[in-house]
């Protein structure tokens, strides 16, 4: 992956809350400049892991270093090295966008002159420069999230944690956030550690750790993970499906089945297989589609269950109600 030392090293992390084991012996490394994703359903232990890495929770057991600092014995150094965008908003909605950023800069010891430049820059990156003096409570969910990302970057962190960065956002906003994230890696060289339970999002990561019931069940690139499930699904339309199917078995040893008059073959490296087939049987093939396996298939295969659908928790709903009442 990278020749540079691992910016995050987690060895045998355990976290218990009373009798509940939220994280059960997780071990992994993240390389510098990587976009690393934790994929798993709610309650799998993703947020707990992030909280431990961010020094917000003490681990029950395990050795964890971030940027070379121990999260238990050197929390201040770890905090200096990281930026976090929490799952729930953590802005002061009575302050303006700019005031929230200034507060952060002061808290992180960014000198005034540097902070002034950096705040302008961060607001531009997330396209909120024109709203800098607006109170945050007038912002939409997507704007708040973007402001939080800007804030997380103010102090030049080495690692940016994004806990479910796009939860509750519409697909369009979600894509925009992703553009920012990839852009950031290029511009700032920052390592990104994110959690998600959206499969499409996990695709953006360089590597994915799949976590379920507090255990890391797989860790690799999205491509490798998907290949581990089995082959691509190749669908061929042919004027003579039967002839094509038997020819495929004869020539390539590929068992084909007929579905709705089309020839379907499951095979690894589908994209490489197609040109060979087309070259071998001119005139027998009208069209080809190659469908790679999805991360859904990976998750299903590894854990035996699908990722549960997200629904607003009672806490979220209560919070919304309180917010309304507070106005």
């Amino acid at each position, binding site marked *: 992956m990278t020749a540079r030392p691992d910016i995050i090293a987690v060895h045998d992390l355990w976290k218990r809350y009373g009798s509940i084991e939220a994280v059960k012996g997780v071990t992994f490394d993240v390389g510098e400049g990587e976009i690393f994703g934790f994929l798993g359903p709610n309650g799998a232990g993703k947020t707990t892991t992030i909280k431990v890495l961010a020094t917000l929770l003490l681990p029950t057991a395990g050795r964890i270093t971030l940027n070379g600092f121990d999260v238990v014995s050197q929390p201040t150094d770890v905090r200096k090295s990281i930026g*976090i965008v929490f799952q729930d908003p*953590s802005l*002061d909605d009575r302050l303006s966008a700019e005031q929230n950023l200034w*507060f952060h800069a002061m808290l992180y010891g960014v000198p005034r002159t540097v902070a002034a430049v950096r705040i302008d820059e961060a607001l531009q990156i997330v396209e909120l420069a024109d709203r800098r003096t607006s109170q945050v409570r007038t912002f939409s969910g997507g704007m708040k999230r973007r402001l939080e990302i800007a804030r997380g970057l103010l102090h*030049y962190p080495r690692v940016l944690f994004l806990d479910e960065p796009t939860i509750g956002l519409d697909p369009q906003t979600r894509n925009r956030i992703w553009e920012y994230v990839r852009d950031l890696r290029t511009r700032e060289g920052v390592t990104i550690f994110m959690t998600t339970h959206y499969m499409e999002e996990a695709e953006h990561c360089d590597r994915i750790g799949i976590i379920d019931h507090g255990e890391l069940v797989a860790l690799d690139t999205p491509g490798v993970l998907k290949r581990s499930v089995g082959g691509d699904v190749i669908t061929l339309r042919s004027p003579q499906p039967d002839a094509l199917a038997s020819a495929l078995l004869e020539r390539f040893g590929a068992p084909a089945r007929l579905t709705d008059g089309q020839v379907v073959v499951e095979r690894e490296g589908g994209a490489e297989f197609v040109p060979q087939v087309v070259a071998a049987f001119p005139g027998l093939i009208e069209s080809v589609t190659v469908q790679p396996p999805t991360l859904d298939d990976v998750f299903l295969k590894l854990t035996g269950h699908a990722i549960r659908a997200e629904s607003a928790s009672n806490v979220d709903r209560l919070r919304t109600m309180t917010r309304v009442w507070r106005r």
Partner: protein
Amino acid sequence: MAQVTERGPMVLRAGTWRHEVVAVYAVWLRDLTRFARERVRIVGAMAQPLIYLIVMGTGFGATFRAAAIPQGFSYKAFMFPGILGMTVLFTSLFSAISVIWDREFGFLKEILVAPISRASIVFGKVLGGATVASLQGTFLLLLAPLVGVTLGWTQVVQLWVVMFLMAFALTSLGLAVASRMTSMEGFQVVMNFLIVPMWLLSGAFFPLRGVPGWMATLMRVDPLTYGVDALRGVVYSGTAVAQFLVAHAFGFNLAVIALVAAGAFAIALATFRTREA
């Protein structure tokens, strides 16, 4: 894509005492900014004491006139320092409970994950609460002429010192309680069983003398008593009625409040440190 900024590992000076001072300032400034934003809160906090002064002052004033009391006594003027104390009490506590809101709305996480010591967070928060409460008290001082109280500059400065120390103690106390609370309901209970009795027993509305022994004892252990007494001492300084209405010397009162403030701050610090985010 253009590299906008060189990544600057040198921009951080976190962990130094200068950084901690800036962090205290940031926490303090936020409380003040919010206070300035909430004009309704300022007006509301002014209206309440005003109502007390007008309604209770007039009502009780009539009752007190019938009793044997020294010449030159005005109940409204007597109540004024008590009302000042009350304003400081409630404004301080309001500042302290904002920690519960901050937890509820996530902002506390932003503060707790910052590379600053818990002590700086608590100190900034307490200073913020104390400043806001003193400001609110100062607005109230503008009403003094309305109740026939005239104040010289020395008195105003003395009042500021007392109000600030009181507010410092009360915000610390409130913070110690609030950092243990996860809901506003919990704080309501504390309010009813601790704050309201503290307030009523402080002598804000009646003098310390002539009450039964058990109550006198309670009033003596109520830290607020010394604050109200100190405020009253300043307001009545040099008048004939002072000896009837003021229980302790100014210096003694101040020493008690300072001691309570130091103790409460230590407790707030300890509770804030032990709590996980």
